[in-house]
């Protein structure tokens, strides 16, 4: 049990090359489940490997517990790591795989045996102990890898995309298993993934990274509802958040978000925020579930400024349906509706936006206006 602290950590692979992780500052609290998420190549795996001691850091400090671990080799850091491709030793049986770490630490034989047995029972791999890794399915292999990590009772668990090689159904099962494991063991976990669903469902806090820089660290709720910039807004959530470009104008004391085709009244609480942006172009972000269909239109529009568009196609996702709307002029909008709401393609729709949930972004910097 320990906290992990990053203090201005810098990593570059080549002296002259670009930085992989740039002045990384993060405190992961004891017993926390921290998820590092971001597109591939954002430095999340590198960050994890630096905690493990598999990568040297070029600047800054990493603490595990109260110990500075910059120059401490992996085996002395008291961590356990689970890899994407399981990293089981193909030449050893499952039992030997799980016992390897304990044997290296000279744990007594009968203790090894009993702890391997009980852990494997908990993970439902007890019947596989005599087999070789190649005889196991992906899900079983990953459970062995998890068991191997659990057995060592480390201070910190590091997981590097452990579920990426599994099929969708297994992934959900294993997700539950890991969450449960965390609840039982109450050990600090750092979990790397590129899958935002995994991040949202598992993390107590999520750290969104891009190009080696932390974009935002927050709880899943805050990340979803109050993203700090456009990148986080579009990365978290599926389908992606909708973005519309428009000008902020003031008319008779009321502030509007105005495109040439439609005008939307901005809710009162946002007035003070948006005043500095008067007559400037901003980006409006709105999640697909906060776009509502007003009605299906026959012929031309009746009202003066409704948002209208033509359905290009719709996707049925089981309980939900995503309707893709073409607003014209290259603007698109995705609407999330219950599956029973059904329209043929090419239907003209009029929609409204739930004003309470919209977020404005500075068009140039991409930062949220808040």
């Amino acid at each position, binding site marked *: 049990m320990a906290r992990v602290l990053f203090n201005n950590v810098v990593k570059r692979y080549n002296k002259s090359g670009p930085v992989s992780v740039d002045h990384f500052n993060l405190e992961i609290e004891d017993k926390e489940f921290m998820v590092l998420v971001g597109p591939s190549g954002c430095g999340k795996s590198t960050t994890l490997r630096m905690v493990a001691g*598999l990568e040297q850091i070029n600047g800054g400090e990493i603490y595990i517990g109260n110990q500075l671990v910059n120059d401490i080799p992996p*085996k002395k850091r008291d961590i356990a790591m689970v890899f994407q491709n399981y990293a089981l030793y193909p030449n050893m049986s499952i039992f030997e795989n799980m016992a390897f770490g304990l044997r290296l630490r000279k744990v007594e034989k009968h203790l090894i045996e009993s702890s391997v047995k009980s852990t494997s029972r908990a993970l439902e791999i007890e019947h596989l102990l005599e087999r070789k890794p190649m005889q196991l399915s992906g899900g079983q292999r990953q459970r062995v890898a998890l068991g191997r990590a659990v057995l060592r009772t480390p201070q910190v668990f590091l997981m590097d995309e452990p579920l990426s090689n599994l099929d969708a159904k297994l992934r959900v099962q294993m997700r539950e298993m890991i969450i449960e494991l965390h609840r039982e063991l109450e050990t600090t976990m750092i979990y790397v993934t590129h899958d935002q669903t995994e991040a949202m469902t598992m993390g107590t806090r999520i750290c969104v990274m891009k190009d080696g820089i932390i974009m935002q660290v927050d709880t899943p709720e805050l990340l979803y509802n109050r993203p700090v910039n456009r990148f986080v807004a579009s990365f978290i959530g599926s389908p992606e958040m909708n973005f519309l470009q428009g000008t902020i104008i003031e008319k008779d004391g009321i502030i509007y978000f105005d495109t040439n085709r439609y005008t939307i009244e901005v809710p009162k609480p946002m007035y003070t925020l948006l005043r500095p942006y008067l007559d400037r172009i901003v980006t409006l972000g709105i999640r697909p579930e906060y776009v509502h269909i007003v009605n299906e239109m026959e012929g031309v529009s009746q009202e003066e400024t409704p948002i209208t568009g033509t359905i290009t196609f719709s996707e049925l996702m089981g309980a939900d349906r995503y309707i893709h709307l073409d607003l014209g002029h290259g603007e698109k909008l995705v609407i999330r509706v219950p599956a029973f709401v059904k329209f043929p393609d090419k239907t003209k729709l009029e929609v409204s936006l739930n004003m309470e949930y919209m977020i404005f972004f500075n068009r140039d910097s991409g930062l949220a206006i808040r």
Partner: protein
Amino acid sequence: MQAWNNALRKGIGSLRKVSAFQWILFILMSLLAMFMLLPIVYLFNHALKPYYELFLYPPTFIARNPSFQNFIDLIVVTQSSIVPMTRYLFNSIVASLLVVVTSCLFSVLCAYPLSKHKFPGKGLIFSGIIISLMFAPEMVGIPRYFVISQLGIINTYWGHVLPLVAMPVGVFLMKQFIDQIPNELLEASKVEGAKEHMIFLKIVIPLCMPAVATTAILSFQSAWSTDETSTLFMENETMKTLPFFVNTLTNQLANNVANQGAAAAAALLLFIPNFIIFLLLQRKVITTMMHSGIK
């Protein structure tokens, strides 16, 4: 469902059907295999040919009147020589085994850091090893002699072994093989607390057994059949090896015809251990990474 079943049946049928191209390929490959087999057939038959058949023109592949006369001749020749043949045989076995063990050990010890570790000059060292593959054996004969004589190991088994320990082919083979071992495997064991020698012994060595087997075959073949070390570094007759003895049967006599039968028998005896070693290890060689369950 019915249509699907039909499609499935058709699919299986077409899998079983051998196309014309495959037939041609099969025939060509069989011919090639038979051609490759000829020397071995010749070797066996030659040893069994009676004396007069050895010099027939055109030479025959199959012995017409097989006999063991050549082996009897060989025994007679060896009994009349000063050093018994068993001594040459013993020297050969000791030297070859030492070469196999040391060359495999050094190859894998050299290949592992080249493959999985970072250190300055790594590329240079590897290129150096590859370039040394191109040296002709004649070129290194004299420098080797100096090294061996300076080390004072002339007339010892180390004189047989040392020139063959450095095996660039083995290093290259092992490196390519170890390259295929995922880094995560080594990292996982590092995180678990394994020291470098434990990783090497418990993970790297067991996983690259196929490459070790291949290297073992190659090094055994070169060690077992070389007479270079005996000619250059051994002055004492009792320290020379079997291939040298077989050569003396024919080469060093004024009369090239005498002892040809004994030489043919000895050549067969020289070949048989190679053959056995290959049969024993070939299964390992064919086992690739795909079968070992890493990927």
